[in-house]
């Protein structure tokens, strides 16, 4: 169905494939940058992934700039403001973010402060607050999930308010995104599964929410097929470079899709659940996806049915009557979650996660209805609707 009018934007240069990292020095030189600051976290550095980047620069005879490796899994305004001060003190001119969603979002937020000026990130909370192109940012994702390397959004925890704030602007998009399978080869199965479910949720919500458009549909569809095909292979053979590349490409495609069509209620609740219970974002997505699809069912039945060939294969779709395809799509997602649970133990219910108390539902519901993603959900939800979804996801 045509939406009448839509906009689609993705100016990020994507370097994808084997040895993609080796193209990085030339890309920075092309942008007149000589002093990049590298942002990462301890886990990524200890896994030796930053060494791949350093080696790429060594081979080009260029020394890499300072490395900040203390970004926590749930980054905050304090961390961003500390890094921005160091960036200025050390005279850096660009950013290279090596990590998962938290590192990439942190780098985007740092870029706001070092490009727009100011000491405090809070001044830029919200949409369309940025007034100029930011400094060149290279995003090197080490997980295949967030799609942050191609999105206009950064989500950062406000240290004082204990809630997640969203920053949205087309200027936040990185200049370059690198998809190199070496960067995801060592990701453990549980994180691989959780981040892949995050990417799957991006694609499914992009395809079923109200800002969908033909171009975002194309990216979302391709991403879903790749995730469903590649994820079981990666979980069975973690060293399979080609399947890892497929998964990383799918995450980027899902990121392009949802950056142009936004996401819905799964993310609205997921952001609040993650902020309240300190649960991994991908895990939140995996926990909530089937229940929100059921909640939206009447409004998204046709779109959900159209996903069945991608989720379960063409043969299953052909053998399923059209009126049963939407339910079969949800069943296929549940089957995928069960298969992932068998291999990785990724929880399928809130109680299974061991990190959520029912007493937290009211707070999660309060935060969820104020989340901007709710605006794009096909069905409105109030606090009691969110609570009932959480109840259904409990066990």
């Amino acid at each position: 169905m045509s939406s009448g009018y839509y906009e689609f934007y993705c100016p990020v240069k994507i370097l994808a494939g084997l040895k993609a990292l080796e193209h990085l020095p030339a890309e920075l030189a092309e942008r007149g940058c000589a002093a990049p600051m590298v942002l990462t976290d301890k886990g990524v550095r200890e896994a030796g992934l930053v060494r791949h980047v350093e080696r790429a620069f060594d081979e080009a005879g260029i020394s890499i700039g300072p490395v900040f490796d203390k970004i926590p899994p749930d980054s905050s305004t304090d961390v961003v403001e500390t890094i921005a001060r160091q960036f200025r003190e050390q005279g850096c001119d660009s950013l290279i973010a090596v990590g998962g969603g938290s590192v990439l979002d942190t780098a985007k937020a740092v870029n706001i402060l070092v490009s727009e000026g100011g000491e405090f990130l809070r001044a830029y909370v919200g949409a369309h607050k940025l007034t100029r192109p930011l400094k060149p940012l290279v995003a090197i994702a080490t997980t295949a999930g967030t799609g942050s390397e191609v999105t206009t959004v950064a989500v950062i925890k406000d240290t004082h308010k204990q809630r997640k704030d969203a920053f949205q602007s087309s200027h936040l998009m990185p200049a370059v995104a690198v998809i190199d399978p070496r960067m995801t080869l060592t990701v453990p199965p549980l994180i691989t599964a959780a981040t892949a479910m995050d990417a799957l949720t991006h694609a499914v919500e992009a395809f079923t929410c109200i800002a969908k458009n033909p171009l975002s549909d194309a990216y979302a569809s391709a991403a879903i097929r790749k995730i469903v095909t590649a994820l079981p292979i990666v979980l069975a053979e973690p060293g399979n470079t080609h399947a890892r590349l497929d998964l990383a490409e799918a995450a980027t495609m899902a990121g392009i899709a949802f950056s142009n069509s936004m996401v819905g209620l799964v993310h609205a609740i997921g952001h609040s659940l993650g902020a309240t219970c300190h649960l991994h974002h991908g895990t939140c997505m995996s926990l909530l996806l089937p229940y929100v699809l059921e909640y939206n069912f009447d409004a998204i039945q046709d779109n959900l049915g159209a996903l069945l060939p991608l989720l379960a294969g063409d043969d299953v779709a052909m053998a399923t009557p059209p009126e049963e395809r939407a339910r079969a799509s949800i069943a296929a997602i549940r089957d995928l979650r069960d298969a992932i649970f068998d291999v990785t133990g990724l929880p399928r219910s809130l109680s299974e996660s061991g990190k959520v108390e029912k007493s937290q539902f009211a707070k999660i519901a309060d935060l969820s209805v104020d989340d901007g993603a709710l605006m794009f959900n096909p069905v409105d939800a109030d606090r009691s609707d969110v609570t009932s979804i959480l109840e259904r996801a409990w066990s």
Partner: protein
Amino acid sequence: MQRAYVALMMRVVGRGLAVASRIDRESIHELEHLPAALTIAMRVYPNGPCCLLQHTGSHLQYLGVRDSGAADLQIIFKHLQHAWLLYTFQENTPTAFARNRIVLDGEVSHATVFNRCMSRLMALILPRLLAERAVKRYPVIALREKLRLAAIIYLRMPLERRRAAA
């Protein structure tokens, strides 16, 4: 014609929100989530009709149709036609957002609260058939309660005076 209609509807909505924020329990509850002194502008880009409100801490105050361009939360229609679609109830606010007809300048969580207040106002003051086109989901509300609140809003709307921003 479109410009005059949109300008009129901005006044109606602005004054209606201010009245509803004092008398409707749902609206009062929603506004508890907005910071005091927050200014909210709805306007048509670049120099179209505008409506300015301020949250006093307990309710919304209608500030008139001045456009200083400096409100904390700005809901900007990219073209007069887009505001026309919304105010003739051919399209609701979330759909207008989804179709990139509106630019939001400000904190997203504040915009979601404001959108709920707008939806609540539409559900109260419009006949159900029209209101269902103006909101994503028509709320559960007894007819007697709807008529009572709508009557108060319509009666007090012309008396709602413009005040200077605090």
